[in-house]
């Protein structure tokens, strides 16, 4: 199973309420995925020239100050950082790939969840309600958020195996379904496109596919159109970029999906019941996205 939800604010008037609107959506999907939960929140953009990295260490006693000092002195830059639950957000001037590599080399148990200017990814095993509480999701402000509640099929129930997956700057993808050609596609992307994979998870391959397409110049909308041809299996995807939001279902459309749109927001959920507390939902346009049709908002769509 698995539950997925997404909320993209079309007007900035609701941005202070993003977390408050989004959290009940995630929790309502607990029945579809009680193993783990994760969210990507797009908020508080880093200043020009800065990158924002979200990282996780399984040891609660891990010394993040020491990490920031070590990485900072290694690369001769200063790193600001603050905790959120078991994750830390690190902000620095510099190149994200370089900083990410130095962070992961510092301690193999460290996992970089996301990198970019705006994205922060938080994910953990446990009930969605507990995960939302741990990261104070309710209080988050921002422009859009994508979330996932997991009932694992393809890989272990671990923090790393939880969604969302991010394989490119500010990009995240969540998935309900299972891909059948992910092994071959992973080999191809690793061998020919230089992508490093962190898990055996099928969804990471889909995320990598989309970010590779976008890195080679395709828009989010076009990258998802390409994926209809190249990805095989069951899927409903919700994808977030720095300023974009998109939904795609496979041509057979096995996995459920509901979209709702008002003048103020676009909301996605696996089931309508996750949307019922959104403001103005009674008069929103509510529809089931068509199979093999890309729906996108914002970004370079």
């Amino acid at each position, binding site marked *: 199973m698995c539950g997925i939800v997404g909320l993209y604010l079309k007007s900035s008037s609701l941005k202070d309420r993003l977390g408050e609107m989004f959290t009940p959506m995630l929790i309502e999907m607990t029945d579809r995925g009680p193993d783990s939960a994760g969210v990507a929140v797009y908020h508080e953009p880093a200043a020009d020239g800065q990158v924002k990295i979200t990282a996780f260490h399984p040891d609660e006693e891990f010394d993040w100050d020491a990490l920031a000092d070590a990485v900072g002195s290694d690369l001769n830059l200063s790193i600001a950082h603050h905790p959120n639950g078991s994750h830390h957000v690190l902000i620095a001037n510099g190149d994200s790939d370089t900083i990410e590599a130095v962070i992961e080399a510092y301690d193999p148990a460290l996992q970089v969840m996301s990198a970019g200017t705006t994205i922060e990814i938080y994910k953990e095993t446990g009930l969605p309600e507990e995960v939302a509480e741990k990261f104070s999701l309710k209080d988050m402000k921002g422009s859009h958020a994508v979330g996932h509640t997991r009932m694992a099929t393809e890989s272990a129930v671990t923090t790393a195996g939880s969604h969302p997956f991010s394989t490119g700057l500010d990009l995240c993808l969540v998935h309900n379904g299972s891909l059948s050609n992910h092994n071959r596609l992973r080999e191809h992307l690793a061998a020919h496109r230089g992508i490093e994979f962190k898990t055996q998870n099928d969804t990471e391959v889909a995320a990598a596919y989309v970010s590779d397409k976008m890195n080679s110049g395709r828009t989010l909308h076009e990258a998802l159109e390409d994926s209809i041809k190249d990805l095989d299996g069951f899927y409903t995807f919700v994808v977030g970029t720095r300023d974009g939001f998109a939904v795609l279902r496979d041509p057979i*459309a096995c996995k459920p999906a509901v979209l709702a749109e008002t003048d103020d927001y676009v909301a996605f959920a696996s*089931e309508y*019941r*996750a949307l*019922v507390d959104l403001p103005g939902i*009674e008069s929103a346009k*509510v529809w089931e996205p*068509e199979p093999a049709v890309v729906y996108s908002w914002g970004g370079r769509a």
Partner: protein
Amino acid sequence: MASGENIEVLDLALTELRDVNARLQGDGASANGFFRIINPRGAHALACGLDNEIEVEVEGHTGYYCAGMNQKAKVVINGNAGQGVAENMMSGEVRVTGDVSQSAGATAHGGLLVIEGNAAARCGISLKGGDIVVKGNVGHMSMFMAQAGTLVVLGDAGDALGDSLYEAQIYVRGSADNLGADCIEKEMRAEHHEKLRVLLEKAGCSDVDVSEFKRYGSARALYNFKPDNVDAY
């Protein structure tokens, strides 16, 4: 619906789903028999397993399997319905004023399902009897392996309509460009016009001209084993 004073209101914001369904399934018939359900909030399995001649009106969108296994009751959903609305209906009537998700009316044996909006994929899959009238369009693989009963589509039909069809009948007013395996267009004779007219009237669309429809059914080419294929074994 009966006049206001005779209607029993069941509020899903205040009452558990199980209690609402128990009321409708159990002693509902002995009451006045008219119910209005408010605040459905996308709940699954609402108004399922009804077995009394009652009328139920749902105000808002419902989740999966609404009015599933219905017998005798008349259920109106003023909103959209999720997957499998009226699945396995035996008799009675279910009407949805909005759109419905996949597998509407799946495996229904009897009764009438009217969808005033569009139906998504697999509408009427494995239909075993009964009638479905969709005023909008239906999605792909509708009436897959349907055995008996009728689907009427006032709009267009998606890909692979009527794939592996048995003796069910399909009438489409709009386009049905991609028929499924063993589904073919058939002649509209006088008895088909009459049957369609009766059905459209029951569904509340008597203003629609039956001559605008085409009829589809099984070519019956997949029914029997062909000796030509014996070498495959």
